[in-house]
């Protein structure tokens, strides 16, 4: 059959995947464990973007994709979406979070104190090249404080609301399966509050940063002050069919409150994610802060930033341009050539007719 030569597609794609995998070689449970242990912040980022809290699966996805982050997140999302929704956990309030780190840039000190917790913020960023010379790297041991800081704290905004500095949003009493779920419904605009927060929680970190940074630099209406940034662990409380409530474990969460100082009261923007993702939370909260009243089509308008920070969709569409487009190209080429021929013909005839 004369067309046989063009039927190579199936074999070629199989071999191309083999080539990709050849570089990393095989992997096993041990490598997954190593990834999980050595790269907790990468795991957190991936879990946040995948909106799936499972350190083992996140580490597996990273090992399986060689650290191609978009691929790892897609793997997890595609797995996640096939899983049944067995239970909806009880809502979590800030004062129930087991807090590791809680800082505020708005006040020198806050009730409960500035708790620095784990951070590289004040580290000197010097590459430990000694390690490559064969030296080991062992971190200095942590010296526990004489008085441990209280583990449970309300949010800074709760204190501000008490002092009439800001208007707390009206609590949303929706519970259980009535809570809008972005993973089971399309995002429509004006967006439901739950959808906005869910969408920011699983947004692509770099994308949220880019748009959030644009708002911070002056393309937004509000300049953020970090009211509270928190890294914590949240208890997942679920209700057994027999009515008893129990803990299904703890998950790492991060949240940011940012405020503006424009009116008589503080305006507030909020974001929270699974895993400890500080840059993402601050950027997302900044977008949230800037979104009310933002001009349509501006980077701080919710339709703009929610659509364009969806990592699985944006990265997928970006790489889809590698697919052949010759039919559409041919179609445009035909119109271009025809228009060109028409123009040439027109300039040949000396007396131009006036436009109708």
């Amino acid at each position, binding site marked *: 059959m004369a067309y046989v030569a063009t039927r190579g597609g199936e074999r070629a794609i199989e071999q191309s995947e083999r080539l990709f995998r050849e570089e990393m070689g095989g992997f096993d449970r041990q490598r997954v464990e190593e990834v999980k242990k050595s790269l907790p912040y990468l795991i957190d980022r991936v879990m946040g973007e995948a909106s799936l809290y499972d350190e083992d699966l996140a580490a597996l996805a990273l090992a399986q994709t060689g650290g191609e982050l978009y691929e790892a997140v897609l793997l997890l999302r595609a797995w996640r979406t096939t899983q049944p929704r067995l239970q909806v956990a009880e809502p979590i309030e800030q004062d129930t979070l087991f807090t590791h780190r809680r800082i505020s840039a708005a006040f020198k000190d806050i009730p409960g104190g500035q708790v620095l917790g784990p951070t590289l913020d004040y580290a000197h960023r010097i590459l430990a090249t000694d390690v490559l010379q064969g030296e080991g790297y062992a971190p200095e041991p942590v010296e526990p404080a004489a008085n441990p800081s209280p583990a449970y704290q309300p949010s800074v905004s709760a204190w501000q609301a008490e002092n009439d500095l800001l208007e707390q949003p009206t609590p949303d009493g929706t519970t259980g399966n009535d809570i809008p779920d972005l993973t089971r419904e399309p995002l429509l605009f004006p967006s439901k509050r739950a959808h906005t927060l869910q969408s920011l929680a699983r947004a692509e970190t770099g994308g949220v940063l880019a748009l959030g940074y644009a708002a911070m630099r002056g393309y937004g209406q509000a300049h953020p002050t970090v009211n509270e940034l928190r890294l914590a662990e949240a208890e997942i409380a679920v209700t057994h069919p027999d009515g008893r409530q129990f803990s299904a474990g703890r998950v790492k969460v991060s949240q940011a409150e940012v405020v503006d100082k424009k009116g008589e009261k503080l305006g507030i923007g909020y974001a929270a994610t699974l895993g400890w993702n500080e840059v993402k939370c601050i950027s997302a909260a900044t977008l949230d802060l800037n979104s009310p009243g933002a001009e349509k089509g501006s980077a701080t308008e919710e339709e703009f930033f929610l659509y364009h920070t969806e990592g699985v969709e944006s990265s997928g569409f970006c790489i889809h341009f590698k697919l052949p487009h010759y039919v559409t190209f041919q179609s445009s080429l035909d119109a271009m050539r025809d228009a060109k021929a*028409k123009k040439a013909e027109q300039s040949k005839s000396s007396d131009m007719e006036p436009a109708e």
Partner: protein
Amino acid sequence: MSLSTLTKPWEAMSYGFLDGSAKRELRRKMLKSVAVPGCQTPYASREVPMARGWGTGGLQVSLTLVNPQTRVKVIDQGADDSVNAASIRRFISRVAGTPTTMDTLEADLIQSRHRIPEEILREDQVLVLQVPNPEPLRPVQPNMSIARQMHADADYGRMWLQLYEQIVRSGRVMQGASYPSLVHGRHVMTPSPIPRWDVPKLHMAKHLTILSAGREKRIFAVPPYTKVEPLVFSDVPYKVEEHGHLTCTRSGATGFFMNEIPQDDGSSAFEVSDSEWGVKTIRARDGEGESRGETWYKDGEMSE
């Protein structure tokens, strides 16, 4: 009641990959799209094990519609052997156990990116078109909430204006593929980036066409025997690509949509874009039997 009566034995994945609730939603949204032809219906659009923009919308529809007897054909730019078509076909068959085919006439369900096959589709066949951008108003209104309102109001003035401006600037409508078309006299839709050549095939077609955009989470449909009219001014007729006179250098087929293959000497050769049509033409030429069905275009002209 015990836990075992509520659960099923563990399986690595559901039949056809998508779980029951995802399929149920898709069925409902498909019915809605059929009921309101050309109107974009939002749907959740689950992630599938393929990147967004690579046919995930079409794939979700196909996975919902198939059963183990459904014979599936997948094409990309007209070709069954294109790498992504091969990948999608392999995936559907792997998770749904469907038989596959390259023959348009044998297929029960055809998932396609950017082409409609040259052979006339029947009432018992379903065409699933992959859609990158479901919004025909995007060039004149990038904001989706405003565009949605415009559809509700049948406010298509800017669409017409855009076509008019192209005629004034370039002497013709410059829209290549994805030619905006009015469905059932009410909704303007994009027929997906099929060439202008293929749009008339949708008009009063016998088959059901479902168009699905996975990344943009919109689904719409052209039910059988529904009017699909490209937006044209009464004095500037609709023009398909001038391919009617071209001959395929491989198969000798004339009068079909062609791929242009640039040659070393600066000229162009052409080969028929519908690869299976090319194969069938070659078979007939080489005396291996006639397997070609009726085509929409005859001698390079769309037949009525």
